[in-house]
């Protein structure tokens, strides 16, 4: 299964998620055009590719704006980095060994090719001959092995020791320090081929396999004791002089502020078009000014600035639906650290699913999407984002804004306003006051929280902000994660990575299952989704449908909105596309006069 990512919902997009799961390179690829048409807001027709088809000039320079209100941290290694801004910085010089198609599945167009064994349990990867690190050393199979050795290392403190790593044969033994060999990984004689064998066959293989190599010769070898894990994580080789085999190489870094990339003439696909790329951190507040002035050519655009972005003449807006959804979570239990599983409390305040359904019905997400985001967000439906066309079930009827329905449900559940203060009491006549935790950040966070509380108040549910304030991203998740008893409901967001498997977010043993919702049925469906049988896509789709239905009925979380991600590109940019699986890759990007 794949872990989801916490994502900060809000226009600021201060994305400092703890576990982005996948490379940005992958998430940058999107869904097909047809899927966009499925959306209720299909009227917002954004191009995925820039219209400028002019010939790129020689020696062009691109200014990339990294929109973040916090600077990038500069841990430029796929193994060790933690923040999304670092992923953005890495994307220019570091690439995955594989290319991905529009369904986020690996293809053979990348630096390496692969072959899956018949029993689906092992994969053989062959690295192309002309793939060289920036320092000229060839990329070796043992470099990929090194990544696995680091990720599974007993001293590894990062967060990427996930299912797809531990599922490698022999990995648990290695991880526990019982052996220094990973039995499931075999490197060929010529160091160009590597075979990875898994304990369990899983449908996630083609989307979830780790395929980032680590230049062992450059950063130093932990296995031989050349460096320690701690030294490695703090090493200059990762922080200020990292290398990869991508189309550009890092020429200079002003920590936290900007990066200068130069063309990698030795790039395996050929000579990149651009001469250099300058990456600059720009705050969400000033990104539009920077775009307008031409200080930056390319950047994401915070949704709340969409209307202003539209007015800027020298840029073009591209957009696609994001691999993410925002939701309201209902706290239903606790995480049992001993057993390492979620325990649902049948006496939780929101144990009655009718109340949860009512709260979903009460939320006017349509207005938020239309008025606040001008259509760039639209009401969420099921927990599988529409991007995954084969698994998302658009036919399920999900609650939409209907206060009357909500009131009816609440009445039915026995919550009525007995003392006439406009708010409902529970069956025993106790006042029902729910504590709502929500994140700060972005200009819209506060009004949205207020808006939902009003929505709920309209149907008679008294909701107040936890501690009377919005909580900062980290402390918010700390509290949610710790099952702070003060929290009844919370607003969160998940970035779902490229593998739609929801086990990591909703399974009985998933720590990220913050609502602590569990049920037999859920266990059964999730097991089926990630089980061997699911190698059959139709079977898997069926189970996905069942699961989505279950979730809509049980409402451990109520999805609020799906979203578009906006990208602004200067009109001089050519050969640029945000289309998933596009043929226009970074090395081909160019600028015209």
């Amino acid at each position, binding site marked *: 299964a794949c872990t989801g990512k916490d994502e900060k919902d809000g226009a600021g997009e201060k994305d*400092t998620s*703890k*576990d982005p799961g996948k490379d940005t390179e992958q998430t940058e690829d999107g869904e097909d055009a047809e899927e966009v048409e499925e959306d209720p807001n299909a009227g917002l027709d954004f191009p995925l590719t820039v219209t400028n088809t002019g010939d790129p000039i020689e020696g062009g320079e691109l200014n990339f704006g990294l929109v973040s209100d*916090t*600077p990038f*941290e*500069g*841990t430029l290694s796929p193994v*060790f980095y*933690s*923040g999304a801004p670092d992923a953005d910085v890495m994307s220019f010089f570091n690439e995955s060994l594989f290319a991905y198609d529009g369904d986020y599945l690996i293809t053979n167009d990348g630096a390496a090719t692969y072959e899956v064994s018949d029993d689906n349990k092992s994969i053989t990867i062959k690295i192309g001959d002309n793939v060289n690190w920036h320092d000229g050393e060839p990329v070796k199979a043992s470099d990929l092995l090194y990544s696995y050795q680091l990720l599974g290392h007993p001293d590894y*403190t*990062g*967060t990427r*020791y996930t299912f797809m790593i531990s599922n490698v044969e022999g990995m648990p033994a290695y991880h526990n320090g019982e052996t220094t060999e990973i039995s499931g990984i075999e490197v060929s004689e010529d160091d160009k081929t590597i075979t990875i064998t898994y304990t369990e066959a899983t449908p996630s293989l083609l989307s979830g396999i780790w395929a980032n190599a680590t230049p062992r010769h450059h950063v130093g070898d932990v296995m031989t004791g050349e460096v320690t894990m701690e030294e490695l*994580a*703090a090493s200059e080789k990762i*922080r200020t002089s990292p290398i990869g085999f991508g189309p550009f190489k890092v020429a*200079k870094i*002003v*920590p*936290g*502020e*900007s*990066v*200068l990339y130069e063309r990698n003439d030795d790039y395996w696909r050929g000579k990149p078009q651009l001469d250099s790329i*300058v990456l*600059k*951190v*720009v*705050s969400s507040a*000033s990104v539009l*000014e*920077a775009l307008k*002035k031409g*200080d930056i050519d390319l950047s994401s655009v915070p949704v709340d600035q969409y209307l202003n972005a539209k007015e800027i003449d020298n840029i073009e807006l591209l957009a696609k639906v994001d691999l993410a959804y925002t939701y309201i979570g209902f706290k239903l239990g606790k*995480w049992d*650290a*001993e057993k*390492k599983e979620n325990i649902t409390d049948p006496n939780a305040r929101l144990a009655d699913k009718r109340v949860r359904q009512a709260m979903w019905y009460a939320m006017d997400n349509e207005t938020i999407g239309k008025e606040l985001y001008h259509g760039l967000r639209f009401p969420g439906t099921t927990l599988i984002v529409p991007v995954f066309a084969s698994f998302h079930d658009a036919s399920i009827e999900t609650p939409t804004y209907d206060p009357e329905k909500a009131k009816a449900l609440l009445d039915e559940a026995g919550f009525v306003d007995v003392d006439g203060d406009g708010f409902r009491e529970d069956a025993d006549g106790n006042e029902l006051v729910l504590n709502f935790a929500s994140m700060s950040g972005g200009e819209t966070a506060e009004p949205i929280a207020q808006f939902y509380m009003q929505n709920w108040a309209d149907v008679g549910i008294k909701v107040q902000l936890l501690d009377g304030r919005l909580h*900062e*991203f*980290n*402390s918010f998740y*700390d509290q949610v*994660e710790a099952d702070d008893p003060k929290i009844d409901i919370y607003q969160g967001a998940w970035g779902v990575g490229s593998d739609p498997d929801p086990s990591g977010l909703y399974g009985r043993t998933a*720590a*990220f299952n913050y609502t602590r919702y569990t049920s037999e049925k859920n266990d059964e469906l999730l097991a089926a989704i990630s089980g061997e049988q699911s190698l059959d896509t139709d079977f898997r789709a069926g189970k996905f449908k069942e699961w989505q239905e279950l979730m809509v009925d049980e409402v451990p979380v109520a999805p609020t909105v799906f979203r578009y991600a906006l990208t602004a590109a200067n009109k001089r940019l050519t050969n640029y596309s945000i289309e998933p699986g596009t043929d226009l890759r970074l090395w081909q990007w160019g600028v015209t006069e």
Partner: protein
Amino acid sequence: MLKFILRRTLLMIPQLILLSLIIFMLAKAMPGDAVTGAFMGNPDATPEQIEKIREKFGLNDPWYQQYGRWIGKAVKGDFGQSYTHQQPVTTLIAGRVENTVLLSLFTAIMIYLMAIPLGIIAGRWTDTWADKMIVTYNYFAFATPLFVFALLMLFLFSFVLGWFPIGGTVDIRIETGTWDYVVSRAKHLFLPVMSAALIGTYATIQYLRNDIIDQKIKDYVKTARAKGVPEGKVYTRHILRNSLLPIAAFLGYEITGLIGGSIFIESIFSYQGLGQLFLQSINLRDFTVVTALVMIFGTATIVGTLLSDIILSIVDPRIRIE
């Protein structure tokens, strides 16, 4: 005199110890410790495992032992590991300290460059139009919150006029060490420095003006006039020396002010310095960094006041004899 300096320097030691104790307590009060850092977002960690690591880090020892270890390391420049940045706090800070030092230094210089002449003019020619203008400016400097002023400066000069870059400390394309590099740094520094300085002159001007007015009527000034000292010299030789003296004593407290200011300035101008780092770390609850920064800034002010006292003891003969 040397003895005074030595004594004053030694006096700094208990101050530093007290500071570190307070900060240590604060750090203890902050949620999270070294272990939380290591296990952030790793839901697989079992309580036993965490307990084992706590033991290993000595987090179960009595507080004074922990404090001893912490301070022992801090003295050597080891403030532990930042868990959002996954690197030693010292490295993290080292990368930015230059920026903040530059910013504060130039701000202080600008403040004195502007405030001293203005204060002198206003104090010497009281109630003239020049004085009235200076006083009015000063009232505005007092009344305008730094952040409002900085925002407006940024908007006007960077966004509208485009004279200065929107943020950052240097243009990355320029070769380090060249003249252009210096120019680029200066260009990036100019707005933050000017914003802080134009507002920061308040205390100095106000003080200087009042003090000159006070000194003007002192007997020793009458003595000087009675000696036939020309008016200009009365100021340069007598009044100003006496009035400017305490400005040296302000230096230490000025540093406290500049640190406060740098938090606003760096945040508004996206200037990569310690102030911004502090805000970010607080926001990310990266308390090892926060602790280290508070310690560093506290030490800076303590050293600043030490400097003031020493400067004062050198220039003021009344203190010199001790």
